[in-house]
């Protein structure tokens, strides 16, 4: 296994990939290049930053515009993924 035997990195040295691994199943905000925000639970993501989310709410200019049970976001549109206190 790639992880076994590896020293626990101090949190300051966490790589972006470590961060992404650590937030699966957590509530997140995904901001797209268009400025639209998606709030929901991160189901999974891949190397293109394609994202699967659950219980997703779409916010345009801070206003709730839509809700999706499940949703797939194409990675090229993603500006950032941020964690959020639930």
């Amino acid at each position: 296994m790639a992880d076994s035997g590896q020293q626990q990195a101090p949190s300051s040295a966490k790589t972006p990939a470590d961060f992404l691994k650590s937030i699966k199943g957590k509530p997140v905000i995904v901001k797209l290049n268009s400025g639209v925000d998606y709030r929901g639970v991160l189901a999974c993501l891949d190397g293109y930053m394609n994202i699967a989310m659950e219980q997703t709410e779409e916010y345009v200019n801070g206003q709730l515009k839509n809700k999706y049970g499940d949703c797939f976001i194409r990675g090229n549109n993603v500006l950032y993924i941020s964690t959020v206190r639930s």
Partner: protein
Amino acid sequence: MATEEDNTVREPLDLIRLSLDEKVYVKLKGERELRGKLHAYDQHLNMILGDVEETVTMVEIDEETFEEIIKTNKRMVPYLFVRGDGVILVSPPLRS
């Protein structure tokens, strides 16, 4: 060995795989939305949809009052190939 119709979502595209032959909602660039049955897709999110309703939303500003006038155009297409690079979001139908 995973079964052929594996219902778990390990990577984001699994969500699309599970929506095959189901009605999906697709949000596209340029204020376009599609609702239709997903018949084919690939890793770029190129897709073929059937019985598609396309909605195009336009916002115009009234020059006198500066009010936003939102106009939507809808049309039906029997079968539509969608190029993946225009896709923002895909959502399966609400599953109970």
